[in-house]
Protein backbone atom coordinates (compact mmCIF):
# COMPACT_ATOMS: atom_id res chain seq x y z
CA UNK A 1 0.00 0.00 0.00
CA UNK A 2 1.07 3.57 -0.57
CA UNK A 3 3.17 4.73 2.42
CA UNK A 4 1.56 7.33 4.64
CA UNK A 5 4.08 9.96 3.58
CA UNK A 6 3.02 9.56 -0.05
CA UNK A 7 -0.66 9.57 0.86
CA UNK A 8 -0.03 12.86 2.62
CA UNK A 9 1.73 14.13 -0.50
CA UNK A 10 -1.28 13.21 -2.63
CA UNK A 11 -3.58 15.06 -0.22
CA UNK A 12 -1.36 18.14 -0.27
CA UNK A 13 -1.40 18.07 -4.05
CA UNK A 14 -5.20 18.19 -3.97
CA UNK A 15 -6.02 14.53 -4.46
CA UNK A 16 -8.08 12.15 -2.39
CA UNK A 17 -6.33 8.77 -2.03
CA UNK A 18 -8.55 5.74 -2.54
CA UNK A 19 -6.89 2.48 -1.66
CA UNK A 20 -7.94 -0.26 -4.03
CA UNK A 21 -5.33 -2.94 -3.67
CA UNK A 22 -1.81 -3.48 -2.43
CA UNK A 23 -0.16 -2.59 -5.70
CA UNK A 24 -2.15 0.21 -7.21
CA UNK A 25 -3.10 3.20 -5.16
CA UNK A 26 -5.72 5.37 -6.79
CA UNK A 27 -6.56 8.98 -6.22
CA UNK A 28 -9.01 11.46 -7.64
CA UNK A 29 -8.12 15.10 -8.15
CA UNK A 30 -11.22 17.04 -7.22
CA UNK A 31 -10.03 20.45 -8.44
CA UNK A 32 -8.70 19.87 -11.92
CA UNK A 33 -8.25 23.62 -12.46
CA UNK A 34 -4.85 23.45 -10.79
CA UNK A 35 -3.82 20.17 -12.35
CA UNK A 36 -0.44 21.40 -13.53
CA UNK A 37 0.44 22.76 -10.08
CA UNK A 38 -0.71 19.55 -8.43
CA UNK A 39 1.37 17.47 -10.81
CA UNK A 40 4.42 19.62 -10.12
CA UNK A 41 3.95 18.99 -6.40
CA UNK A 42 3.76 15.26 -7.00
CA UNK A 43 6.86 15.30 -9.19
CA UNK A 44 8.81 17.40 -6.68
CA UNK A 45 7.63 14.97 -4.00
CA UNK A 46 9.33 12.13 -5.82
CA UNK A 47 6.85 10.82 -8.41
CA UNK A 48 9.39 11.32 -11.17
CA UNK A 49 8.32 8.46 -13.44
CA UNK A 50 5.30 8.92 -15.68
CA UNK A 51 4.13 5.52 -16.82
CA UNK A 52 1.01 6.35 -18.77
CA UNK A 53 -1.29 9.25 -19.55
CA UNK A 54 -4.53 8.82 -21.44
CA UNK A 55 -8.11 10.08 -21.60
CA UNK A 56 -11.65 8.80 -21.86
CA UNK A 57 -14.55 10.55 -23.53
CA UNK A 58 -17.29 10.70 -20.95
CA UNK A 59 -20.11 12.55 -22.64
CA UNK A 60 -20.57 15.69 -24.77
CA UNK A 61 -17.56 17.87 -23.92
CA UNK A 62 -16.58 16.00 -20.76
CA UNK A 63 -13.49 13.88 -20.54
CA UNK A 64 -11.76 11.90 -17.83
CA UNK A 65 -7.97 12.01 -17.73
CA UNK A 66 -6.01 9.00 -16.42
CA UNK A 67 -2.42 9.28 -15.24
CA UNK A 68 -0.18 6.50 -13.88
CA UNK A 69 2.92 7.48 -11.89
CA UNK A 70 5.71 5.71 -10.03
CA UNK A 71 7.93 6.84 -7.19
CA UNK A 72 11.46 5.42 -7.67
CA UNK A 73 12.06 5.19 -3.91
CA UNK A 74 8.74 3.44 -3.35
CA UNK A 75 8.66 1.39 -6.52
CA UNK A 76 6.48 -1.27 -4.94
CA UNK A 77 3.37 0.88 -5.36
CA UNK A 78 2.05 2.85 -8.28
CA UNK A 79 -0.26 5.83 -8.19
CA UNK A 80 -3.16 6.16 -10.60
CA UNK A 81 -4.68 9.63 -10.74
CA UNK A 82 -7.79 10.67 -12.56
CA UNK A 83 -9.67 13.89 -12.99
CA UNK A 84 -12.46 15.27 -15.10
CA UNK A 85 -11.78 17.83 -17.79
CA UNK A 86 -14.30 19.81 -19.74
CA UNK A 87 -13.38 21.05 -23.17
CA UNK A 88 -15.14 24.32 -23.77
CA UNK A 89 -16.12 25.31 -27.25
CA UNK A 90 -15.20 28.88 -28.16
CA UNK A 91 -18.06 31.37 -28.15
CA UNK A 92 -19.36 32.56 -31.53
CA UNK A 93 -17.00 32.51 -34.49
CA UNK A 94 -13.81 32.67 -32.52
CA UNK A 95 -10.80 32.03 -34.74
CA UNK A 96 -9.56 28.47 -34.67
CA UNK A 97 -6.14 27.93 -33.22
CA UNK A 98 -3.53 25.75 -34.77
CA UNK A 99 -1.87 23.46 -32.29
CA UNK A 100 0.67 22.03 -34.65
CA UNK A 101 4.01 23.74 -34.44
CA UNK A 102 5.38 21.72 -37.37
CA UNK A 103 7.26 19.61 -34.87
CA UNK A 104 9.86 22.19 -33.94
CA UNK A 105 12.49 24.01 -35.94
CA UNK A 106 13.81 22.20 -38.94
CA UNK A 107 11.93 18.98 -38.43
CA UNK A 108 12.16 16.95 -41.60
CA UNK A 109 8.96 15.36 -42.73
CA UNK A 110 6.85 17.85 -40.75
CA UNK A 111 3.09 17.47 -40.86
CA UNK A 112 0.48 19.81 -42.23
CA UNK A 113 -1.13 22.12 -39.66
CA UNK A 114 -4.05 20.57 -37.87
CA UNK A 115 -6.73 22.76 -36.42
CA UNK A 116 -8.70 22.59 -33.24
CA UNK A 117 -10.81 25.18 -31.56
CA UNK A 118 -11.33 24.23 -27.94
CA UNK A 119 -10.01 25.44 -24.61
CA UNK A 120 -6.76 23.72 -23.76
CA UNK A 121 -5.64 21.35 -21.09
CA UNK A 122 -2.31 22.46 -19.57
CA UNK A 123 0.49 20.34 -20.94
CA UNK A 124 2.10 17.96 -18.47
CA UNK A 125 5.16 17.60 -20.71
CA UNK A 126 6.72 20.47 -18.76
CA UNK A 127 6.39 18.34 -15.64
CA UNK A 128 7.15 14.93 -17.14
CA UNK A 129 8.68 15.03 -20.66
CA UNK A 130 7.27 11.56 -21.38
CA UNK A 131 3.79 13.09 -21.28
CA UNK A 132 4.50 14.86 -24.58
CA UNK A 133 4.00 11.71 -26.64
CA UNK A 134 0.86 10.77 -24.72
CA UNK A 135 -0.56 14.24 -25.35
CA UNK A 136 0.03 13.91 -29.07
CA UNK A 137 -2.02 10.74 -29.03
CA UNK A 138 -4.76 12.20 -26.83
CA UNK A 139 -5.02 15.24 -29.11
CA UNK A 140 -5.46 13.20 -32.25
CA UNK A 141 -7.74 10.57 -30.72
CA UNK A 142 -9.95 12.85 -28.59
CA UNK A 143 -9.31 16.37 -29.87
CA UNK A 144 -8.13 17.72 -26.50
CA UNK A 145 -5.47 20.37 -27.17
CA UNK A 146 -2.62 20.87 -24.71
CA UNK A 147 -1.38 24.39 -24.10
CA UNK A 148 2.39 24.39 -23.83
CA UNK A 149 3.06 21.26 -25.86
CA UNK A 150 5.01 22.45 -28.90
CA UNK A 151 4.47 19.33 -30.94
CA UNK A 152 0.94 18.02 -31.28
CA UNK A 153 1.49 16.65 -34.77
CA UNK A 154 -0.54 13.54 -35.60
CA UNK A 155 1.08 10.40 -34.27
CA UNK A 156 -0.84 7.42 -35.63
CA UNK A 157 -3.41 8.81 -38.05
CA UNK A 158 -3.04 10.31 -41.48
CA UNK A 159 -2.38 14.03 -41.19
CA UNK A 160 -5.28 14.79 -43.55
CA UNK A 161 -7.80 12.88 -41.44
CA UNK A 162 -9.54 15.45 -39.26
CA UNK A 163 -11.64 13.48 -36.87
CA UNK A 164 -11.11 12.01 -33.42
CA UNK A 165 -11.85 8.26 -33.48
CA UNK A 166 -11.98 7.63 -29.74
CA UNK A 167 -14.70 10.17 -29.06
CA UNK A 168 -18.12 8.66 -28.53
CA UNK A 169 -19.64 10.82 -31.26
CA UNK A 170 -17.15 9.56 -33.86
CA UNK A 171 -18.87 8.20 -36.94
CA UNK A 172 -16.91 5.34 -38.55
CA UNK A 173 -18.62 6.13 -41.88
CA UNK A 174 -16.49 9.26 -42.03
CA UNK A 175 -13.35 7.17 -42.00
CA UNK A 176 -14.75 5.09 -44.84
CA UNK A 177 -15.59 8.19 -46.88
CA UNK A 178 -12.12 9.50 -46.17
CA UNK A 179 -10.49 6.26 -47.36
CA UNK A 180 -12.59 6.34 -50.53
CA UNK A 181 -11.61 9.94 -51.21
CA UNK A 182 -7.95 8.99 -50.88
CA UNK A 183 -8.42 6.23 -53.45
CA UNK A 184 -10.23 8.62 -55.80
CA UNK A 185 -7.41 11.11 -55.41
CA UNK A 186 -4.88 8.39 -56.18
CA UNK A 187 -6.77 7.40 -59.36
CA UNK A 188 -7.00 11.05 -60.40
CA UNK A 189 -3.27 11.55 -59.84
CA UNK A 190 -2.48 8.43 -61.85
CA UNK A 191 -4.67 9.65 -64.71
CA UNK A 192 -3.06 13.10 -64.66
CA UNK A 193 0.36 11.50 -64.76
CA UNK A 194 -0.68 9.33 -67.72
CA UNK A 195 -1.83 12.31 -69.79
CA UNK A 196 1.14 14.48 -68.92
CA UNK A 197 -0.39 16.66 -66.20
CA UNK A 198 -3.36 18.08 -68.12
CA UNK A 199 -6.84 16.79 -68.71
Amino acid at each position, binding site marked *: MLPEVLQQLVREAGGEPLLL*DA*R*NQRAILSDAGNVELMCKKLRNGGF*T*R*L*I*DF*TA*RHHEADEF*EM*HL*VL*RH*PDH*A*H*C*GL*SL*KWKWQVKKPAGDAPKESYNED*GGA*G*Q*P*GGHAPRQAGFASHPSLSRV*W*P*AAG*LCEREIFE*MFGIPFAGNENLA*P*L*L*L*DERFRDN*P*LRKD*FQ*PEKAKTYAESLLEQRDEDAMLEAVGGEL
Partner: protein
Amino acid sequence: MTQHADRRLEKRFDPLLTEKVVFAVGPQHPSLPAPVALNVQADGELIERVYPEVGYMHRGVEHLCQTRPLAQCAPLLSRCDWLSGHFADYIYSNAIEQLYNVEAPERAQWLRTLVLELNRISSHLFWWGQLGLEAGAITPVFWAMRERELLLDLFYELTGSRWHHHWIIPGGVNGEPPLGWYGRVSSALRQVAEAVEHYERFYSDNAIWINRSELIGTLDADFALISGASGPVLRASGVAHDLRRDQPYLKYAEVEFDIPSGEHGDVLDRYRVRMEEIRQSISIAGHCLEELASVGDDAQLRDGEIPEINNETELPKGDVYAAVEGPRGEMGLTLVTNGGAVPERVHLRAPSLYHLFLLDELCRGYLLADLFVIFGSLDIMIGEVDR
Protein backbone atom coordinates in the same frame (compact mmCIF):
# COMPACT_ATOMS: atom_id res chain seq x y z
CA MET B 1 18.92 18.27 -26.28
CA THR B 2 20.88 17.05 -23.30
CA GLN B 3 24.37 18.25 -22.46
CA HIS B 4 25.56 14.70 -23.03
CA ALA B 5 24.42 14.77 -26.65
CA ASP B 6 25.95 18.22 -27.14
CA ARG B 7 29.31 16.99 -25.91
CA ARG B 8 29.19 14.02 -28.23
CA LEU B 9 28.53 16.18 -31.26
CA GLU B 10 31.24 18.63 -30.28
CA LYS B 11 33.75 15.85 -29.70
CA ARG B 12 33.10 14.21 -33.03
CA PHE B 13 32.76 17.39 -35.02
CA ASP B 14 34.09 16.98 -38.52
CA PRO B 15 36.20 20.02 -39.53
CA LEU B 16 35.72 19.23 -43.21
CA LEU B 17 32.87 21.10 -44.80
CA THR B 18 30.06 18.65 -45.26
CA GLU B 19 26.58 19.26 -46.50
CA LYS B 20 23.59 18.55 -44.28
CA VAL B 21 21.16 16.09 -45.72
CA VAL B 22 17.70 15.01 -44.68
CA PHE B 23 16.45 11.63 -45.80
CA ALA B 24 13.98 8.96 -44.78
CA VAL B 25 14.93 5.43 -43.81
CA GLY B 26 11.78 3.43 -44.39
CA PRO B 27 8.89 2.95 -44.06
CA GLN B 28 9.95 -0.11 -46.08
CA HIS B 29 13.58 -1.00 -45.43
CA PRO B 30 15.42 -4.34 -45.15
CA SER B 31 16.78 -3.44 -41.71
CA LEU B 32 13.44 -2.41 -40.25
CA PRO B 33 11.32 -5.16 -38.71
CA ALA B 34 8.03 -3.48 -39.61
CA PRO B 35 6.90 -0.31 -41.39
CA VAL B 36 8.25 2.80 -39.68
CA ALA B 37 9.94 5.84 -41.22
CA LEU B 38 13.03 7.22 -39.55
CA ASN B 39 13.54 10.75 -40.85
CA VAL B 40 17.23 11.39 -40.42
CA GLN B 41 19.04 14.71 -40.52
CA ALA B 42 22.77 14.13 -41.01
CA ASP B 43 25.87 16.24 -41.39
CA GLY B 44 28.03 14.10 -43.61
CA GLU B 45 28.08 10.76 -41.82
CA LEU B 46 27.15 12.16 -38.42
CA ILE B 47 23.55 11.91 -37.32
CA GLU B 48 22.11 15.16 -35.99
CA ARG B 49 18.45 14.31 -35.51
CA VAL B 50 16.19 11.29 -35.96
CA TYR B 51 12.43 11.78 -36.14
CA PRO B 52 10.44 8.56 -36.17
CA GLU B 53 7.20 8.66 -38.13
CA VAL B 54 4.78 5.97 -37.07
CA GLY B 55 1.23 4.90 -37.86
CA TYR B 56 1.84 2.83 -40.98
CA MET B 57 0.47 -0.24 -39.17
CA HIS B 58 -2.25 1.55 -37.23
CA ARG B 59 -5.24 -0.79 -37.02
CA GLY B 60 -7.38 1.16 -34.57
CA VAL B 61 -7.16 -1.56 -31.92
CA GLU B 62 -8.33 0.72 -29.10
CA HIS B 63 -11.30 1.93 -31.14
CA LEU B 64 -12.18 -1.66 -32.10
CA CYS B 65 -12.01 -2.73 -28.44
CA GLN B 66 -14.40 0.03 -27.46
CA THR B 67 -17.01 -0.93 -30.03
CA ARG B 68 -17.42 -4.65 -29.30
CA PRO B 69 -17.84 -6.93 -26.28
CA LEU B 70 -14.71 -7.28 -24.17
CA ALA B 71 -14.61 -11.02 -24.91
CA GLN B 72 -13.65 -10.13 -28.50
CA CYS B 73 -10.79 -7.85 -27.43
CA ALA B 74 -8.28 -10.49 -26.32
CA PRO B 75 -7.28 -11.52 -29.88
CA LEU B 76 -6.89 -7.85 -30.84
CA LEU B 77 -4.61 -7.08 -27.90
CA SER B 78 -2.34 -10.10 -28.30
CA ARG B 79 -1.76 -9.14 -31.93
CA CYS B 80 -0.24 -5.80 -30.95
CA ASP B 81 3.00 -7.43 -29.80
CA TRP B 82 2.99 -10.72 -31.66
CA LEU B 83 6.31 -11.85 -30.17
CA SER B 84 4.98 -11.87 -26.63
CA GLY B 85 1.32 -12.79 -26.95
CA HIS B 86 1.13 -14.40 -23.49
CA PHE B 87 1.88 -11.03 -21.88
CA ALA B 88 -1.06 -9.34 -23.60
CA ASP B 89 -3.26 -12.28 -22.59
CA TYR B 90 -2.08 -11.84 -19.01
CA ILE B 91 -2.85 -8.12 -18.71
CA TYR B 92 -6.24 -8.66 -20.34
CA SER B 93 -7.04 -11.47 -17.87
CA ASN B 94 -5.57 -9.63 -14.91
CA ALA B 95 -7.61 -6.50 -15.67
CA ILE B 96 -10.81 -8.56 -15.67
CA GLU B 97 -9.79 -10.33 -12.46
CA GLN B 98 -9.20 -6.92 -10.85
CA LEU B 99 -12.72 -5.89 -11.91
CA TYR B 100 -14.18 -8.98 -10.23
CA ASN B 101 -11.73 -8.69 -7.32
CA VAL B 102 -10.57 -12.29 -7.65
CA GLU B 103 -7.20 -13.99 -8.01
CA ALA B 104 -6.38 -17.01 -10.11
CA PRO B 105 -5.74 -20.27 -8.18
CA GLU B 106 -2.21 -20.96 -7.02
CA ARG B 107 -1.54 -23.61 -9.65
CA ALA B 108 -2.67 -21.25 -12.39
CA GLN B 109 -0.34 -18.57 -11.04
CA TRP B 110 2.67 -20.91 -11.19
CA LEU B 111 1.69 -22.00 -14.71
CA ARG B 112 1.31 -18.38 -15.79
CA THR B 113 4.69 -17.47 -14.30
CA LEU B 114 6.31 -20.37 -16.15
CA VAL B 115 4.73 -19.54 -19.48
CA LEU B 116 5.50 -15.82 -19.23
CA GLU B 117 9.17 -16.60 -18.62
CA LEU B 118 9.26 -19.02 -21.56
CA ASN B 119 7.71 -16.28 -23.68
CA ARG B 120 10.31 -13.78 -22.44
CA ILE B 121 13.09 -16.17 -23.49
CA SER B 122 11.59 -16.72 -26.94
CA SER B 123 11.16 -12.96 -27.45
CA HIS B 124 14.74 -12.23 -26.33
CA LEU B 125 16.05 -14.96 -28.65
CA PHE B 126 14.28 -13.33 -31.59
CA TRP B 127 15.78 -9.98 -30.57
CA TRP B 128 19.27 -11.49 -30.36
CA GLY B 129 19.05 -12.94 -33.85
CA GLN B 130 17.75 -9.69 -35.26
CA LEU B 131 20.47 -7.67 -33.52
CA GLY B 132 23.04 -9.80 -35.30
CA LEU B 133 21.45 -8.89 -38.62
CA GLU B 134 21.53 -5.18 -37.73
CA ALA B 135 25.24 -5.49 -36.92
CA GLY B 136 25.97 -7.27 -40.20
CA ALA B 137 26.23 -10.85 -38.95
CA ILE B 138 23.82 -13.27 -40.57
CA THR B 139 24.59 -16.45 -38.58
CA PRO B 140 23.04 -15.46 -35.19
CA VAL B 141 19.52 -15.25 -36.58
CA PHE B 142 19.65 -18.91 -37.66
CA TRP B 143 20.95 -20.01 -34.28
CA ALA B 144 18.37 -17.92 -32.45
CA MET B 145 15.50 -19.26 -34.55
CA ARG B 146 16.69 -22.83 -33.92
CA GLU B 147 16.45 -22.43 -30.15
CA ARG B 148 13.31 -20.33 -30.32
CA GLU B 149 11.63 -23.06 -32.32
CA LEU B 150 11.96 -25.38 -29.30
CA LEU B 151 9.89 -22.96 -27.25
CA LEU B 152 7.33 -22.32 -29.99
CA ASP B 153 6.81 -26.08 -30.28
CA LEU B 154 6.15 -26.20 -26.55
CA PHE B 155 3.63 -23.36 -26.89
CA TYR B 156 1.98 -25.19 -29.76
CA GLU B 157 1.62 -28.32 -27.62
CA LEU B 158 0.25 -26.32 -24.73
CA THR B 159 -2.09 -23.90 -26.48
CA GLY B 160 -2.57 -25.18 -30.02
CA SER B 161 -0.95 -22.05 -31.39
CA ARG B 162 2.61 -20.86 -31.89
CA TRP B 163 2.09 -17.10 -31.53
CA HIS B 164 -1.43 -16.08 -30.56
CA HIS B 165 -2.24 -18.35 -27.67
CA HIS B 166 -5.16 -17.13 -25.50
CA TRP B 167 -4.20 -19.78 -23.00
CA ILE B 168 -4.07 -17.36 -20.08
CA ILE B 169 -7.73 -16.57 -19.55
CA PRO B 170 -9.66 -14.66 -16.87
CA GLY B 171 -9.68 -16.79 -13.73
CA GLY B 172 -6.82 -19.10 -14.64
CA VAL B 173 -5.48 -20.94 -17.65
CA ASN B 174 -7.18 -22.76 -20.47
CA GLY B 175 -6.33 -26.38 -19.72
CA GLU B 176 -3.50 -28.38 -18.18
CA PRO B 177 -0.29 -29.08 -20.09
CA PRO B 178 -0.27 -32.38 -22.02
CA LEU B 179 1.43 -35.50 -20.72
CA GLY B 180 5.22 -35.21 -20.67
CA TRP B 181 5.18 -31.48 -21.35
CA TYR B 182 7.07 -30.51 -18.19
CA GLY B 183 9.87 -32.89 -19.09
CA ARG B 184 10.11 -31.41 -22.56
CA VAL B 185 10.24 -27.90 -21.03
CA SER B 186 13.19 -28.97 -18.83
CA SER B 187 14.97 -30.41 -21.82
CA ALA B 188 14.36 -27.29 -23.93
CA LEU B 189 15.57 -25.03 -21.12
CA ARG B 190 18.81 -27.03 -20.85
CA GLN B 191 19.35 -26.67 -24.60
CA VAL B 192 18.65 -22.94 -24.51
CA ALA B 193 21.02 -22.49 -21.54
CA GLU B 194 23.82 -24.23 -23.44
CA ALA B 195 23.03 -22.22 -26.55
CA VAL B 196 23.18 -18.92 -24.65
CA GLU B 197 26.68 -19.76 -23.41
CA HIS B 198 27.60 -20.54 -27.00
CA TYR B 199 26.15 -17.18 -28.17
CA GLU B 200 28.13 -15.40 -25.48
CA ARG B 201 31.38 -17.05 -26.52
CA PHE B 202 30.66 -15.94 -30.06
CA TYR B 203 29.86 -12.33 -29.10
CA SER B 204 31.58 -11.41 -25.86
CA ASP B 205 35.18 -11.42 -27.09
CA ASN B 206 34.37 -10.49 -30.65
CA ALA B 207 36.30 -7.30 -31.40
CA ILE B 208 33.94 -6.33 -34.22
CA TRP B 209 30.90 -6.59 -31.96
CA ILE B 210 32.58 -4.73 -29.09
CA ASN B 211 33.62 -1.91 -31.42
CA ARG B 212 30.13 -1.69 -32.86
CA SER B 213 28.41 -1.61 -29.48
CA GLU B 214 30.61 -0.24 -26.71
CA LEU B 215 29.71 3.36 -25.80
CA ILE B 216 27.40 3.52 -28.81
CA GLY B 217 23.88 4.89 -28.31
CA THR B 218 24.40 5.77 -24.65
CA LEU B 219 21.37 6.67 -22.56
CA ASP B 220 21.71 8.57 -19.27
CA ALA B 221 19.78 7.10 -16.36
CA ASP B 222 18.09 10.44 -15.61
CA PHE B 223 17.04 10.95 -19.21
CA ALA B 224 15.78 7.36 -19.40
CA LEU B 225 13.64 7.85 -16.29
CA ILE B 226 11.94 11.03 -17.45
CA SER B 227 11.45 9.76 -21.00
CA GLY B 228 9.23 6.84 -20.07
CA ALA B 229 11.86 4.14 -20.67
CA SER B 230 11.27 0.83 -18.93
CA GLY B 231 12.40 -2.78 -18.99
CA PRO B 232 15.85 -3.76 -20.25
CA VAL B 233 16.40 -0.32 -21.84
CA LEU B 234 15.99 1.38 -18.45
CA ARG B 235 17.95 -1.28 -16.57
CA ALA B 236 20.86 -1.06 -19.01
CA SER B 237 21.19 2.59 -17.96
CA GLY B 238 21.75 1.50 -14.38
CA VAL B 239 18.20 1.81 -12.99
CA ALA B 240 17.31 -1.62 -11.61
CA HIS B 241 13.54 -1.25 -11.81
CA ASP B 242 11.61 -4.40 -12.58
CA LEU B 243 7.91 -4.85 -11.87
CA ARG B 244 8.51 -8.51 -11.04
CA ARG B 245 10.48 -7.42 -7.99
CA ASP B 246 9.09 -3.92 -7.31
CA GLN B 247 5.41 -4.89 -7.49
CA PRO B 248 5.53 -8.69 -7.41
CA TYR B 249 2.61 -10.30 -9.22
CA LEU B 250 1.86 -13.98 -9.84
CA LYS B 251 4.55 -15.99 -7.99
CA TYR B 252 7.57 -13.74 -8.50
CA ALA B 253 7.73 -12.88 -4.79
CA GLU B 254 8.42 -16.56 -4.05
CA VAL B 255 11.18 -16.95 -6.62
CA GLU B 256 14.76 -15.78 -6.22
CA PHE B 257 16.24 -14.05 -9.22
CA ASP B 258 18.61 -11.22 -10.03
CA ILE B 259 17.78 -7.98 -11.81
CA PRO B 260 20.69 -7.37 -14.19
CA SER B 261 21.56 -3.75 -14.86
CA GLY B 262 24.16 -1.89 -16.89
CA GLU B 263 26.44 1.05 -16.36
CA HIS B 264 26.63 3.21 -19.49
CA GLY B 265 23.27 2.50 -21.09
CA ASP B 266 24.98 1.75 -24.39
CA VAL B 267 24.22 -0.93 -26.96
CA LEU B 268 26.60 -3.34 -25.21
CA ASP B 269 24.85 -2.88 -21.86
CA ARG B 270 21.45 -3.46 -23.42
CA TYR B 271 22.83 -6.62 -25.02
CA ARG B 272 24.34 -7.89 -21.74
CA VAL B 273 21.22 -7.12 -19.73
CA ARG B 274 18.99 -9.10 -22.08
CA MET B 275 21.38 -12.04 -22.27
CA GLU B 276 21.51 -12.19 -18.48
CA GLU B 277 17.71 -11.93 -18.39
CA ILE B 278 17.50 -15.08 -20.49
CA ARG B 279 19.60 -16.89 -17.87
CA GLN B 280 17.44 -15.52 -15.06
CA SER B 281 14.27 -16.54 -16.90
CA ILE B 282 15.64 -20.07 -17.30
CA SER B 283 16.27 -20.16 -13.56
CA ILE B 284 12.76 -18.84 -12.76
CA ALA B 285 11.18 -21.35 -15.15
CA GLY B 286 13.14 -24.16 -13.47
CA HIS B 287 11.81 -23.06 -10.08
CA CYS B 288 8.25 -23.02 -11.46
CA LEU B 289 8.66 -26.59 -12.75
CA GLU B 290 9.72 -27.75 -9.28
CA GLU B 291 6.75 -26.05 -7.63
CA LEU B 292 4.27 -27.34 -10.17
CA ALA B 293 5.12 -30.91 -9.20
CA SER B 294 3.50 -30.40 -5.81
CA VAL B 295 1.06 -27.49 -6.05
CA GLY B 296 -2.76 -28.02 -6.01
CA ASP B 297 -4.92 -29.33 -8.85
CA ASP B 298 -7.14 -26.39 -9.79
CA ALA B 299 -5.86 -24.21 -12.61
CA GLN B 300 -9.09 -22.29 -13.14
CA LEU B 301 -11.52 -20.54 -10.82
CA ARG B 302 -14.82 -22.35 -10.44
CA ASP B 303 -18.21 -21.22 -11.71
CA GLY B 304 -19.58 -18.50 -9.51
CA GLU B 305 -16.18 -17.06 -8.61
CA ILE B 306 -15.82 -15.45 -12.04
CA PRO B 307 -18.27 -15.81 -14.91
CA GLU B 308 -17.31 -16.99 -18.35
CA ILE B 309 -16.46 -13.86 -20.34
CA ASN B 310 -18.54 -14.04 -23.51
CA ASN B 311 -20.41 -11.60 -25.72
CA GLU B 312 -23.29 -11.28 -23.26
CA THR B 313 -21.26 -10.97 -20.06
CA GLU B 314 -22.04 -7.71 -18.33
CA LEU B 315 -18.86 -6.51 -16.65
CA PRO B 316 -18.86 -4.82 -13.25
CA LYS B 317 -18.47 -1.06 -13.35
CA GLY B 318 -14.95 0.13 -12.65
CA ASP B 319 -11.59 1.24 -13.96
CA VAL B 320 -8.37 -0.69 -13.52
CA TYR B 321 -4.77 -0.59 -14.68
CA ALA B 322 -3.08 -3.95 -15.19
CA ALA B 323 0.66 -4.04 -15.79
CA VAL B 324 3.25 -6.68 -16.54
CA GLU B 325 7.03 -6.65 -16.97
CA GLY B 326 7.17 -7.64 -20.61
CA PRO B 327 10.27 -8.47 -22.66
CA ARG B 328 10.35 -4.88 -23.95
CA GLY B 329 9.37 -3.10 -20.75
CA GLU B 330 6.23 -2.30 -18.81
CA MET B 331 3.17 -3.29 -20.78
CA GLY B 332 -0.02 -1.89 -19.27
CA LEU B 333 -3.73 -2.00 -19.92
CA THR B 334 -6.18 0.66 -18.78
CA LEU B 335 -9.69 -0.78 -18.77
CA VAL B 336 -12.77 1.29 -17.95
CA THR B 337 -16.16 -0.40 -17.85
CA ASN B 338 -19.62 0.99 -17.27
CA GLY B 339 -21.65 -2.07 -16.43
CA GLY B 340 -22.20 -3.38 -19.97
CA ALA B 341 -20.50 -5.97 -22.16
CA VAL B 342 -18.68 -3.33 -24.22
CA PRO B 343 -15.84 -1.52 -22.40
CA GLU B 344 -15.86 2.27 -22.18
CA ARG B 345 -12.12 2.63 -22.66
CA VAL B 346 -9.30 0.26 -23.50
CA HIS B 347 -5.79 1.69 -23.66
CA LEU B 348 -2.58 -0.24 -24.14
CA ARG B 349 0.62 1.17 -22.65
CA ALA B 350 3.24 0.15 -25.21
CA PRO B 351 6.87 0.35 -23.99
CA SER B 352 8.18 0.42 -27.56
CA LEU B 353 6.45 3.76 -28.20
CA TYR B 354 8.64 5.52 -25.64
CA HIS B 355 11.78 3.66 -26.70
CA LEU B 356 11.30 4.48 -30.38
CA PHE B 357 11.21 8.20 -29.65
CA LEU B 358 14.46 7.89 -27.66
CA LEU B 359 16.23 7.37 -30.99
CA ASP B 360 16.65 11.12 -31.47
CA GLU B 361 18.69 11.32 -28.28
CA LEU B 362 20.47 8.00 -28.67
CA CYS B 363 21.69 8.51 -32.24
CA ARG B 364 22.76 12.14 -32.04
CA GLY B 365 26.45 12.48 -32.82
CA TYR B 366 26.91 8.89 -33.96
CA LEU B 367 27.59 7.55 -37.41
CA LEU B 368 24.86 6.59 -39.83
CA ALA B 369 26.16 3.01 -39.64
CA ASP B 370 25.31 3.00 -35.93
CA LEU B 371 21.65 3.83 -36.53
CA PHE B 372 20.49 0.25 -37.05
CA VAL B 373 22.61 -1.23 -34.27
CA ILE B 374 21.09 1.31 -31.86
CA PHE B 375 17.61 0.67 -33.26
CA GLY B 376 18.13 -3.10 -32.91
CA SER B 377 19.38 -2.79 -29.35
CA LEU B 378 16.07 -1.18 -28.28
CA ASP B 379 14.01 -4.23 -29.34
CA ILE B 380 11.17 -2.15 -30.72
CA MET B 381 7.90 -3.79 -31.69
CA ILE B 382 6.15 -1.56 -34.22
CA GLY B 383 2.90 -3.51 -33.85
CA GLU B 384 2.42 -2.23 -30.31
CA VAL B 385 3.58 1.28 -31.19
CA ASP B 386 0.98 1.63 -33.93
CA ARG B 387 -1.74 -0.53 -32.35
